[in-house]
């Protein structure tokens, strides 16, 4: 009885200290990795670019022309008009990233694929596409198999005959003109349509024409700027025209965001004025290891003269191969698993199998490439083709998993609506599901490609050479890659000069490429998520 009469003396004390300490410990743990990586990145960027070796006057000039105005304008815009700020920053970011990829593309046209070859294949592709579409339009009553065989024959015919025919012509237009037509044409079509916004047929036609002429200006501008007609045309087609088209189209759609252009103008103008002023005043810039010479020359025994050119070209070719292989296969597998697969043992097995493949170490994929492609299929070691195929197998599970997620996010009601209209399954997938899931699929694929670009071990396994002095020119030539070159410098040529010069520079280039790919994916994902 006595116990029941005991009174409760309050609830005791709850200390806030424990909770607060815990919370900040968690935050510290979260930031640990990020801060550690940031410090390492600052160190490596400092080693590679050496900003402190520049004249104080150089820093001062750029601070006055670029940094200060940018800070003022962006600070003002950010407070008063955040959407315009984001638009302006987006334009500058797009120009920077696309110029980088434009540089890579220019490299392809200068050293790997001559413009005439590219032109002939684009022509063949255009003819094939026109033929197939024409056949579809012409007569829907023909049986499917007849149409399919006809279209197939037409495609084979045009790819078999046209490139050879065009390349054997005694005279053809200059490289700049061919690139303008074959690369600038498609770009101008897309960009012009976006830039014209709701301007009607005539406006769109004018916009497309303007874009095409702008790309064609590379033929004149290139020699003037001493970079050659081909790189200038490619840069215009890949970077400048799309960015300008985006800016114009966006302003036409959202006139209120015009102030954002002020930010873009400040940054670009400031950089230009700064560069001119520094040259005029004679201030020396930093003695950066990441310079034109580093980007355009091959490996050398002396660290200061070593360059990354063959490795950059190799990485680009590998990326193209990997994308061409893994995108259709990965998306195909994801479509089967999400849209077709019955819930049976085989499906569940494939499912488990894919998630296990995602956990297989990359060296083992390298062994797979070595064993299957080299030993059993008798391919030569270290070529673009087997390197790309091995890396494609490596990222296939990641592509499949992310594509499945994107497909799953398409609401079932949309599929049912399509079936309700009498569409077949393939029509539903083609017209409803895939377009809706496309941004998500693209994001996942870009992230996976980023993983493939950074992989070294599989390339070593399949016997890619550590040192390569020229760009690969075909699928069957030996390939190097940026991370492989960095590895070779860091381990096989391990010496102080390489550790201080070539390796940091290589790391910085590799990371810039990777981070810009990741940022494209993240921007795409954010845009896609807010749209839904």
């Amino acid at each position, binding site marked *: 009885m006595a116990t029941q009469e005991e009174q409760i003396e309050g609830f005791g004390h709850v200390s806030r200290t424990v909770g607060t300490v815990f919370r900040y410990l968690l935050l510290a743990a979260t930031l640990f990795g990020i801060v550690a990586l940031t410090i390492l990145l600052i160190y490596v960027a400092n080693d590679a670019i050496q900003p402190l070796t520049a004249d104080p006057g150089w820093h001062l000039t750029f601070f006055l022309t670029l940094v200060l105005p940018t800070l003022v304008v962006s600070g003002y815009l950010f407070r008063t008009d955040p959407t315009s700020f984001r638009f302006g920053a987006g334009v500058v970011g797009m120009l920077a990233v696309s110029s980088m990829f434009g540089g890579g593309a220019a490299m392809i046209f200068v050293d790997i694929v001559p413009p005439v070859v590219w032109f002939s294949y684009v022509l063949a592709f255009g003819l094939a596409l026109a033929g197939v579409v024409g056949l579809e339009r012409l007569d829907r009553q023909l049986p499917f198999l007849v149409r399919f065989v006809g279209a197939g024959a037409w495609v084979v015919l045009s790819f078999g005959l046209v490139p050879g025919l065009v390349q054997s012509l005694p005279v053809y237009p200059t490289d700049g003109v061919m690139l303008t037509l074959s690369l600038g044409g498609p770009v101008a079509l897309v960009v012009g349509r976006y830039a014209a916004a709701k301007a009607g047929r005539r406006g769109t036609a004018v916009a497309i024409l303007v874009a095409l002429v702008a790309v064609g200006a590379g033929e004149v501008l290139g020699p003037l700027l001493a970079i050659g007609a081909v790189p200038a045309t490619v840069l215009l087609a890949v970077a400048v025209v799309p960015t300008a088209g985006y800016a114009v189209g966006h302003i036409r759609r959202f006139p209120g965001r015009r102030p954002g252009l002020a930010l873009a103008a400040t940054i670009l103008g400031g950089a230009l004025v700064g560069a001119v002023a520094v040259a005029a005043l004679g201030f020396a810039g930093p003695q950066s290891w990441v310079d034109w010479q580093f980007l355009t020359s091959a490996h050398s025994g002396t660290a200061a003269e070593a360059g990354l050119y063959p490795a950059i070209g190799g990485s680009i070719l590998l990326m193209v191969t990997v994308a061409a292989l893994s995108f259709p296969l990965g998306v195909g597998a994801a479509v089967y698993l999400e849209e077709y697969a019955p819930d049976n043992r085989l499906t569940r097995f494939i499912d488990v199998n894919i*998630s296990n493949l995602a956990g297989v170490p990359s060296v083992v994929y390298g062994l797979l490439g070595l064993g299957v492609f080299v030993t059993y299929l008798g391919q030569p070691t270290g070529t673009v083709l087997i390197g790309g195929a091995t890396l494609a197998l490596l990222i296939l599970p990641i592509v499949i998993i992310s594509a499945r997620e994107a497909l799953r996010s398409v609401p079932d009601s949309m599929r049912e609506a399509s079936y309700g209209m009498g569409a077949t399954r393939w029509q539903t*997938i083609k017209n409803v599901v895939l377009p809706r899931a496309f941004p998500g699929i693209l994001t996942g694929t870009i992230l996976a490609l980023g993983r493939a670009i950074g992989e070294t071990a599989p390339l070593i396994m399949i016997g890619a050479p550590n040192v390569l002095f020229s760009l690969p020119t075909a699928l069957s030539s030996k390939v190097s890659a940026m991370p492989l070159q960095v590895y070779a410098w860091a381990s096989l040529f391990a010496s102080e000069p390489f550790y201080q010069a070539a390796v940091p520079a290589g790391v910085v280039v590799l990371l810039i490429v990777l981070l810009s790919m990741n940022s494209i994916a993240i921007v795409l994902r954010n845009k896609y998520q807010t749209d839904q």
Partner: protein
Amino acid sequence: MSTDDLQRDLTRRTENAPQELLTRSFFFLCAVLSIVTTVSIILMLTTEAAKFFSITAPLMGVEGPTASVVDFLTGTKWIINNEQFGVLPLVSATLAITIGSAVVALPLGVATAIYLSEYATPRAQRVLKPALEVLAGVPTVVYGFFAVVYITPALRTVIPGLGTFNMLSASIVVGIMIIPMVASISEDAMSAVPDSLRQAGYGMGATKFDVSVGIVVPASLSGIFSSFILALSRAIGETMAVTVAAGSQANLLNPLNPAAYLEGALPMTAAMVNLLTGDVTGGGIAYRSLFAIGLTLFVITLIMNVISDLVAQRYREEY
């Protein structure tokens, strides 16, 4: 068009129309490719490894030097030129990397997961999550370079006896690399804990600390464990960072002895890369030893992945 035609058109079964069949079979083939990949990995590793071991080599019709299974699994020396293929030094180094990176990554990863799922505002999440993804996105060869050039000299100011190539900095970078994996899978598990459980906790007068540690973490334990196993399997398979940072001396070391981390060793993956960057001619015993290590590695990581799957499925709390 007569009614009969219309009737036929409207009730036509499209499932097996040529176009449908064609696309369906293409998609099916894509999905089956993953099985083909797995099968060829297993077949290739086992056949090539079988040629390596003396017990199975005659069955494969292989002449020339071979190694005995017992020597491979229990040998304490890995010297290729002497044809001494004892895998224990390599396994001990891999184990050391795994333990070392676990010490770094598991507590930090779980803490990150708790912070992201319980404390962080949506805005902080939007910044922190991509930043963490970047940690996992940096190429591993770059981490290896960081370990050798920046982390080792920094550690040497505290521990003077540290070698140029050592397990300590290799473990640290591998640990940093796998933090995002632990964090993201654990965070998924924690976010799946229903709010009603948290609210019940608050209703009983628990603080946020009590709720996080006493309710959310126990409720998502299976997910946390499965993230541990997956991340450790990734650490075991990690190649370039350890190849660059851990050195190439195949020392047998005791992974539980902290002093062992001060010197270099040769983990399995690094041994494979070293074999290939040296002059390995196709078909020789050194070449086949590559596949024997590969098989060991594949089996270990496969078992870990399967266990992780089982843990996540069997012990998952259904809400």
